[in-house]
């Protein structure tokens, strides 16, 4: 039992420790008022690159318009790159044209920081599509999230002007993501990850068969995939692939990369709003929920593969279906929780082959979607829960609720609940539609609770902008491509725009004087209240589908 505890403690403890200096650095890099001449010089450069629209400080509306305009351009550029793949360079393995609905789905997926993949990279995309299209989106979609969080924090610190999106995007790309990616990718290369522009190689095996081995510029791609909570793999089976995750050490570094920027985002938020103690409480709440899920997944995954029970197969190693031996026993389920709690979506073991209740934990991660959540947007999601929590707490003691010295009124709470319900509606509505019709029924691997789980997982993944999947699902159909494509886009931008609107409304109010009756957001009482809000909201919304899918499968088949 000691082995998984040490493993998890090393990864979480190490990353949490590193997130503190990184959060401090990110606050500096994203801060427009930095007195430091370094930050000023960078801002001047970014204004020159972006041109006139970078020179005005924006309120929430123009900020959102700029964000959407740039994201629309991102979408169009990559749509064109994937659509024109056969005519573009860097295609040593001669990848052909990609189906239109798949181009739409893939572009929507990477633009929205989801990286749901209805294709296998090594058999569908050229190096040009992977690097110039998808890897580029992995940088700028993650930068969009960091920019949005910085703007939210500025609004909550009482500034009516939230900064300038075009400058923020460059700060996040060039000052935050790029340097961290350079360091991590270098370490990945040193630890043995492939990085080549040469095409596939043909080997003659010892038994004389021919084996074609796909390769590629994996280290660069993989690194930003993890750091930007993107998750889209270079190869189909993602970070289980020996080239995308060669050793236990690359595996641990990848797990660190998955959570470090989402963790640092909490500290960055705390520093920009000037309430680091408050950020500490939020950080702790996220950590507690994360640990509960990891404990659940690792424990449930120690049960051996159920259908081997009646065969003469040793049962002392846990469930090894879909797992790599070089990562050890605790890695698969721990990764499954980290990747779904952060909207990353890369996989270090096949989620479809997890034991039913272990497979429930990634779903819980995507349903809650804020422990630590996606780069930037995880903290934004948590902000929505905070608004609801302070509102409920205020009602309970009969006071007008306040957050960071601004009164929270019904209008803001309505918007926050709206944003949270968008997520729930897409998951539950989409699952209902596909589970009830041939659009979903004909694509599942097994009828019954596991098939239901596959559909539920796919919509959870799309709406949480996660990108992992129960990959037994035949999701390469036009119906799946279009439905999940639309869900990914709407579930990306609505929960960015509404929180920025709330922050704009709060910033427009006068600061409320702090009195003895003010509910603090910097103590453990607030932490408990926040956890209770999240758990009650999550359980009320998702318990019925959990019962129909993974819980039913567990009760029916597991002994």
């Amino acid at each position, binding site marked *: 039992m000691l082995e998984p505890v040490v493993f998890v403690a090393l990864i979480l403890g190490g990353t949490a420790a590193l997130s503190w200096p990184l959060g401090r650095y990110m606050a500096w890099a994203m801060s427009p008022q930095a007195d430091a001449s370094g930050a000023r010089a960078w801002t001047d450069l970014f204004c020159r690159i972006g041109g*006139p629209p970078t020179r005005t400080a924006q309120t929430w509306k123009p900020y959102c318009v700029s964000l959407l305009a740039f994201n629309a351009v991102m979408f169009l550029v990559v749509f064109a790159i994937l659509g024109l793949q056969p005519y573009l360079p860097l295609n040593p393995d001669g990848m052909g044209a990609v189906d239109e609905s798949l181009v739409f789905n893939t572009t929507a997926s990477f633009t929205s920081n989801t990286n749901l993949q209805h294709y296998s990279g090594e058999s569908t995309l050229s190096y040009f599509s992977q690097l110039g299209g998808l890897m580029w989106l992995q940088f700028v979609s993650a930068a969009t999230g960091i920019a949005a969080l910085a703007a939210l924090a500025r609004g909550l610190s009482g500034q009516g002007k939230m900064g300038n999106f075009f400058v923020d995007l460059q700060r996040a790309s060039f000052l935050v993501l790029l340097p961290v990616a350079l360091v991590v990718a270098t370490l990945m290369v040193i630890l043995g990850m492939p990085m*080549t522009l040469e095409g*596939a190689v043909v*080997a003659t*095996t010892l038994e004389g068969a021919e084996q074609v081995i796909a390769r590629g510029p994996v280290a660069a791609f993989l690194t930003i995939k993890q750091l930007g909570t993107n998750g889209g793999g270079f190869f189909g089976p993602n970070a289980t692939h020996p080239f995308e995750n060669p050793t236990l050490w690359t595996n641990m570094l990848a797990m660190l990369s998955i959570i470090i920027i989402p963790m640092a985002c909490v500290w960055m938020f705390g520093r920009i709003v000037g309430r680091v103690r408050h950020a500490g409480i939020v950080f702790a709440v996220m950590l507690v929920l994360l640990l509960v899920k990891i404990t659940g997944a690792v424990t449930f995954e120690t049960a051996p593969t159920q259908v081997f029970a009646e065969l*003469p*197969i040793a049962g002392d190693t846990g469930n090894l279906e879909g797992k790599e031996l070089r990562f050890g026993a605790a890695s698969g389920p721990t990764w499954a929780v980290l990747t779904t709690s952060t909207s990353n979506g890369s996989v270090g073991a096949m989620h*479809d082959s997890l034991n039913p209740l272990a497979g429930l934990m990634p779903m819980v991660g995507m349903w809650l979607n804020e422990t630590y959540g996606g780069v930037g947007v995880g903290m934004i999601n948590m902000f929505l829960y905070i608004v609801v929590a302070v509102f409920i707490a205020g009602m309970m003691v009969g006071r007008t609720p306040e957050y960071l010295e601004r009164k929270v009124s019904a209008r803001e709470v309505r918007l926050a609940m709206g944003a949270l319900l968008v997520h729930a509606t897409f998951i539950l509505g989409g699952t209902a539609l596909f589970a009830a019709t041939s659009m979903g029924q004909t694509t599942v691997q097994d009828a019954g609770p596991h098939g239901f789980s596959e559909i539920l997982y796919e919509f959870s993944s799309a709406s949480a902008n996660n990108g992992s999947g129960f990959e037994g699902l035949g999701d390469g159909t036009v119906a799946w491509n279009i439905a999940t494509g639309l869900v990914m886009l709407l579930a990306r931008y609505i929960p960015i725009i509404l929180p920025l609107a709330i922050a704009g409304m709060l910033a427009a109010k006068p600061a409320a004087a702090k009195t003895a009756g003010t509910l603090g957001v910097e103590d453990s009482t607030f932490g408990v209240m926040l956890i209770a809000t999240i758990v009650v909201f999550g359980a009320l919304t998702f318990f019925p589908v959990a019962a129909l899918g993974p819980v039913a499968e567990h009760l029916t088949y597991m002994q």
Partner: protein
Amino acid sequence: MVSVAHLTASLRLVVATMLVCVVGYTLAILGIAQLFPETASGSLIRNDRGQIVGSARIAQNFTSPGYFWPRPSAAGENGYDATAASGSNLSPTSPEVRERGREIVESFGASESSPLPAELAAASGNGLDPHITVAGARYQVARVAGARDVSEDRINRLIDELAYTPGGFLTKTPIVNVLKLNLALDGLDVPGGDGSGEIAG
């Protein structure tokens, strides 16, 4: 709302981020990769005649009794397809997994008194897991020794030489690379050969 200025600013940002984050970043990492030519190009293994026989990181299929057999593979139609890596993605409650388990148990001749190590019946996440556990290797020693007419001791020593725990104290199960082990076996046949395949770029 959206103005031409927004679009020109966006396009200028597209060019800047493409140049720095795609071209610059990729070239920088490619440059660093030149310092690690073997692993950066896929840890390919060549035989004495310089032919590529596989990658140390990628499983290949072995079916003859004189070789160690890898884990089952769901990559491609016949398994071990390194251009179509894939897991089975089957639930651990799936009858298909039971059926595969039954066939494999038969091919290894496993019985209640000598149960099969589980990884030999469970497909990996990508179908290319190059390792088996040391227990999984020991389980096959008698068959391999019989087919090659070599003493079991000799083969057990090869396993000991190549076995390692991938994370030191973090993982307790020792594993062994199947392709390297089989190359070492072939080396036994060559007089004076030490069997170690030469890794080349």
